[in-house]
């Protein structure tokens, strides 16, 4: 695969109709700490993917396919993502 490297940031969240026990529990924890202003908490997942593609549009299409096929379960989850040109990978010191 040739082309540029892109960084996709994918966010997967439970659908509004799905009860989110983790979110409810975190909300309770925050209120216990005195954050009385907390109205609701939803807990989801954050996934970073580095992909190679000619163009940004192509990278977006592929990432969308990844989300539909594996990263999110459409029965219980929604997803959204953004794609940007990836910074060069950091040098890993050898030895």
């Amino acid at each position: 695969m040739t082309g540029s490297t892109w960084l996709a940031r994918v966010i997967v969240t439970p659908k509004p109709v799905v009860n989110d026990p983790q979110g409810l529990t975190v909300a309770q924890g925050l209120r216990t700490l005195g954050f009385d202003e907390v109205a609701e908490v939803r807990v989801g997942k954050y996934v970073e993917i580095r992909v190679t593609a000619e163009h940004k549009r192509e990278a977006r299409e592929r990432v969308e396919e990844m989300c539909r096929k594996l990263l999110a379960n459409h029965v219980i989850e929604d997803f959204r993502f953004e794609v940007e040109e990836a910074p060069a990978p950091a040098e890993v010191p050898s030895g």
Partner: protein
Amino acid sequence: MRFGVVVFPGTWSDRDCGWVIDQVLGAELRYLWHKDRDLQGCDCVILPGGFSHGDYLRTGAIARFSPVMESVAEFAERGGLVWGICNGFQILCEAGLLPGALIRNDALQFRCEWTHLVCERTDTAFTAVVERRQVLRIPISHGEGNYFADPPTLSRLEQHGQVVFRYADEHGFVVPAANPNGSMHNIAGIVNERGNVLGMMPHPERAAELEIGSADGLFLFRSLLDSGVKVLTA
């Protein structure tokens, strides 16, 4: 009746299922590796409990793309008997062979305890020797067994009588207190419309000998043997 038990990396109930089939019932047993496509002529394929592929991302999400699952889907399509237990149920939902999904238990705890199930369908190959409304004592062992389906799917399941097992009290009353994980409508197990694919969270293979607390799980294994349904061979 030849049983096939699928083994994924991280499966933990394969040997328990195998023990019941082989040692308790004396039936024919084959272990099916997740990378193989050959179902070895099995009449019933069991997807056992465990944490396939570490259950990373979501329970069953990676396992459903295993080579063996293509064969299982084709087998189910042709009317073959497929039985998902615990992680197997989660895999069947991920694969779209059963509707809905299993999400985190409402109490957020991993629940490992005895439950009572009331059986509402006795006309399936999996429950043929169970009596209608019979209460079975079978344990659960899961962190993500909270059955969810959107309202149209849920009403379709109920209309078509696809709910086979519900969590109940020891007398068979379906009450909120008997629900160990927050499942909608106390659902513990469902079948597809055709009735050849069953998914359930409780573990019948761990309730197959009185010495370990209950032999009620045998009703399901015996149903498969006794029903004599030689429906299809993989």
